[in-house]
């Protein structure tokens, strides 16, 4: 059965990376289309008219939007290999809850760490660390958020790791000093090919953030 899979994305997006890791875990071949977010293509505006955002997965011509919704879709279509979600309802509900927590709490406050200065930045740093510490407590002594296996919650959070050097440099703090278990967990995830081959180099992301700060006029 030949399926046509296209991913519209941008290399530096932690949301797009989630989809790329999921596709890699399942061994799915796909066409990758890099989007310039400062000059959005007609294609993107057509396939995601509501949010006009990446990532968008196009499967047999039909678009799926929102990274965690796309990941669940991938897991349900290619359900014969490498499950990303647990099989029982309660662990599945917990996985959805924590992935939703990452979405609601990590992105916005992390963005403030590199786009603000002074008191606002200090408050953002504090909240960012507190959020990671909540996640550390949830991880506990398990190797992964999924327990013994890398799963949905790990996938939803690990992609932020590629931005950590940028956060640390602009925020002038060490994430490892505050949240050592998160860093240990991240390094464990990076031992997986699907993660290591997807996450861009932290220095490359940092260079990108430098350009973005100039554009936002943060300096």
């Amino acid at each position, binding site marked *: 059965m030949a399926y046509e899979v296209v991913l519209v994305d941008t290399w530096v997006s932690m949301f797009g990376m989630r989809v790329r890791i999921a596709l890699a875990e399942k061994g799915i071949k796909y066409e990758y289309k890099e989007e310039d977010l400062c000059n959005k293509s007609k294609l993107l505006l057509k396939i995601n008219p509501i949010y006009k955002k990446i990532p968008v997965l196009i499967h047999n011509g039909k678009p799926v939007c929102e990274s965690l*919704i796309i990941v669940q879709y991938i897991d349900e279509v290619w359900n014969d290999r490498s499950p990303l979600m647990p099989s029982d309802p309660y662990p599945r*509900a917990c996985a959805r809850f924590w992935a939703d927590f990452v979405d609601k709490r990590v992105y916005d406050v992390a963005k403030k760490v590199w786009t603000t200065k002074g008191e606002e930045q200090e408050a953002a740093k504090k909240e960012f660390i507190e959020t990671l510490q909540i996640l550390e407590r949830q991880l506990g002594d398990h190797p992964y958020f999924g327990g013994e296996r890398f799963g949905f919650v790990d996938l939803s959070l690990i992609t932020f790791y590629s931005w950590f050097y940028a956060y640390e440099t602009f925020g002038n703090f060490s994430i490892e000093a505050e949240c050592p278990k998160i860093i240990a967990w991240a390094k464990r995830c990076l031992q997986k090919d699907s993660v290591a081959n997807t996450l861009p180099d932290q220095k490359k992301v940092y260079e990108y953030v430098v350009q973005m700060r100039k554009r936002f006029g943060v300096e």
Partner: protein
Amino acid sequence: MAEEVLVFGAWGSPFSRRVEMALKLKGIEYKFIEEDLTNKSPSLLKYNPVHKKIPVLVHNGKPVAESLVILEYIDETWKDHPILPKDPYERANARFWAKFIDEKCLSAIFKACWGACWGEEKEHEKAEIEHEKAVKEVSELLQFLENELKEKRYFGGETVGLLDIAANTIGYWLGVFEEASGVELLTREKFPKLCNWANEFVCVTAIKENLPPRDKLIAYFRNRFGAGNASK
């Protein structure tokens, strides 16, 4: 083992009513615990220490929080009267629109109804412009939902599904906000399909039995946010 299902919620909250609607649809017995949101119970804080919010479903002692997560858990645990379609693309679609309603619609509706008189005083003209912008935004968002409904009786097709339940904010609470604030948003001329859907939705037994009394709700929102300042 006897099954114990608890729902921590609040009488006026569309989010906790969603949970009750889904349980009722599936014929699941549960015990409802009304939370005073100004004085949260130790049980609520124990079962949802992360967000400290309602609703929380506690099934045989195990808590699930976040209404859309709870709806999926209910569907996967009690298989009668499924509320999510089987097809993965249809499922993704239902999830997308449910998220759209929660993330985009509600805050826009609140802003349109109460934005200009919420918080500090603003000059009348500036408030008017903000208000018009908010109303326009709600109109655009409702148009997306109108288009998504197409010719279906419910968002879920022939029967009420997860997206219909998630859209309870549009199907019932929106009418309440409109009356409480005096702002018209869901008009029949612009949104005939959505209006028809709302009428059908509130007649479904499992839904009807879980709608808070309209007058009480209107009074509550009028009291909380004021009677609105839209010029008609």
